[in-house]
């Protein structure tokens, strides 16, 4: 039998507030946000921090939904293991004395790695004021994609948290890579 106590202890020690692995749907995002809103209400006194965490979480979750390729209809596990896997994602929200941490992981197609990496690096090398100017420029000039987002999501995450975007890509096969992302939101 699975050692649940060990698992419980590990999650407890790491201050895990919520974790999920599987297919991310819009309904699921809604449920996660409701749960986290309740948890933050209990745990966090600063309204400012609460709002920042909620805001960043909204963007992270919607990013997750938009990056996962929903172009095909139902995933078919028998057809291709990765065809199924690429709809799947992981989310871990945890906290420590200094910050809340939102970590997400999902598959992306290999051809999108360089573009995403370049975008995240650009955001990370930009000062606070430059980031604000970039946000305004995209907001005013660029057409948003059908899926929404429009490139503002990661800028907003960086602005609200005031932190660098942590990320890693792991090549899985010739078609897919796994994208790991983590943002820390300092406590007030």
């Amino acid at each position, binding site marked *: 039998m699975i050692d649940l106590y060990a698992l419980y202890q590990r999650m407890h020690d790491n201050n895990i507030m919520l974790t999920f692995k599987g297919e991310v749907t819009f309904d699921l995002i809604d449920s996660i946000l409701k749960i986290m809103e309740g948890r933050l209400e209990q745990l966090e006194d600063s*309204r400012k921090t609460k709002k920042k965490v909620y*805001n960043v979480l*909204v963007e992270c979750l919607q990013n997750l939904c938009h990056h996962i390729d929903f172009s095909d209809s139902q995933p078919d596990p028998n057809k291709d293991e990765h065809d199924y896997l690429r709809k799947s994602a992981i989310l871990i929200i945890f906290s420590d004395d200094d910050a809340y941490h939102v970590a997400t992981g999902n598959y992306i197609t290999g051809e999108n790695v360089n573009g995403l990496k370049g975008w995240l690096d650009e955001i990370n090398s930009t000062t606070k004021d430059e980031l*604000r100017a970039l946000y305004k420029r995209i*907001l005013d000039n660029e057409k948003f994609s059908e899926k*929404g*987002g429009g490139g503002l999501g990661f800028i907003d995450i960086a602005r609200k948290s005031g932190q660098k975007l942590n990320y890693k890509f792991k090549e899985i096969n010739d078609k897919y890579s796994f994208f790991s992302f983590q943002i820390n939101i300092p406590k007030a």
Partner: protein
Amino acid sequence: MDNLIIEGSNHTPDVNFNADTGTLALKGRSTPENSIEFYRPLLEWLDQYGSNSKTEKTTLKIQLEYFNTSSSKCILDIFKKVNALFKDGLNVSINWYYEEEDEDMQEAGEDYSDLLDVPFEIIELEEE
């Protein structure tokens, strides 16, 4: 013309666009996945309002707790419609309200204000 009233939800704001009083209010949170769909009727209403407005003054009042980046562009589209009314000579203004000490929301208001010509007031709400 008809007023536009939409009840808010956990991820969409209360809408109360009143053509009789000239007060157009948007209040609550705006974090829908498909914001284009939500904001379309608001934009269409504003198109009608331009040629039907009978009030002396029109004020768009925005008081948001949260909004996501997918809403941000739609909110700008709303503001641009109002901006066009202003340029057409209508007496219009925008009030952007933010909760006490919510610097993120204050900054967001300033960002919008920079992109528009219409009178844009950023107002801090006192804690209740």
